[in-house]
């Protein structure tokens, strides 16, 4: 795209409707993310994470990446947050306020995060202050375009990734299934790998799969 031709019709002081919508949803997303990392109620953190991830999905829609947006809703909001809630329940997370949710180094963490935010915002704004996204032309992220490129040019990484996902899920089941009474976890790991597919679905981990 020619930068000068498109930059002529834009300005900072005349935002388009898409920019205003992006800004509002972005403020909501960022607020939900900040509450996620600062709240003292562990279950509320997971629920605010739903809001943050849903906001990111709306941002994908505004960037015309509709397929990514629905994948985001399905995978993150649908399964990852449910997994996190299961994890909170299985580790007997306290319901209500837990005063020790933050460790002792939160002020150092705040300083590091603010310094990183300042440096990165400065660099990004300085680098892209004269760059506009052109939404004209063919839609970039429709399901047809994404599927076509994914299965034309990205087939081999796609298949390798499916093998990785399978290995990771089998590993998660093996790690978390309960062995016999009084057995070391290493022994449970060793024969758990051989019997993983025939094991009865009694552990909580397998029920949630």
């Amino acid at each position, binding site marked *: 795209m020619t930068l000068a031709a498109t930059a002529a019709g*834009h300005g*900072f002081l005349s935002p*388009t409707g898409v920019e205003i919508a992006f800004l509002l949803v*972005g403020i909501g997303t*960022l607020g939900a*993310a*900040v509450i996620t*990392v600062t709240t003292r109620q*562990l279950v509320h*953190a*997971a629920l605010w*994470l739903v809001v*943050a*991830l849903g906001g*990111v999905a709306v941002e994908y829609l505004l*960037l*015309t*990446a509709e*397929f*990514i947006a629905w994948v*985001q809703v399905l*995978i*993150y909001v649908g*399964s*990852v947050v449910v*997994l996190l809630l299961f994890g909170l329940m299985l*580790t007997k*997370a306290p319901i209500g306020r837990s005063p*020790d*949710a*933050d*460790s002792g*180094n939160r002020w150092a963490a*705040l300083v*590091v*995060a603010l310094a*990183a*935010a300042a440096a*990165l*915002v400065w660099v*990004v704004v300085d680098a*892209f202050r004269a*760059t506009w*996204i052109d939404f004209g032309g063919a839609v*970039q*992220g429709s399901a047809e375009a*994404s599927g076509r*490129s994914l299965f034309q*040019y*990205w087939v081999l990484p*796609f298949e390798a*990734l499916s093998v*990785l*996902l399978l290995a990771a899920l089998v*590993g*998660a089941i093996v*790690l978390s299934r*309960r062995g016999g009474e009084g057995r070391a*976890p290493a022994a449970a790991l060793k024969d758990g790998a051989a019997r993983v597919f025939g094991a009865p679905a009694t552990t909580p*981990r397998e029920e949630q799969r």
Partner: protein
Amino acid sequence: MHLAYPAVLAVLLFCTGLYGVLARRNAILVLMSVELMLNAVNLNLVAFDVWLRDTLHAGQALTLFTIAIAAAEIGIGLAIVLLVYRNRGSSDIDRLRDLAERPDGTDADGTPQPDTKAEATA
């Protein structure tokens, strides 16, 4: 749309996740913060893919790959956290310091620390 909007939003989301990873004590909250950081990266990938109009759709394909890897990561991570909780009775990451190097040279099997003693009875 100005490219700075998604880029700055991604930066701020990433730094929020960074704060969460550094400041949180519960391991599952740390995993939530890691998810926030991965989402920031995904937002950058999508925005730059739409900006560059890549014929290979590299940004969107890599976003899908990142989402799949994040799902695998959260599965393995939660399995490890559950295993640690089952063995130790706690999932606070700053209490898991059996492998830490002490400044005076002693380690966990030389002189048992108060933390490991508490975890053994838990």
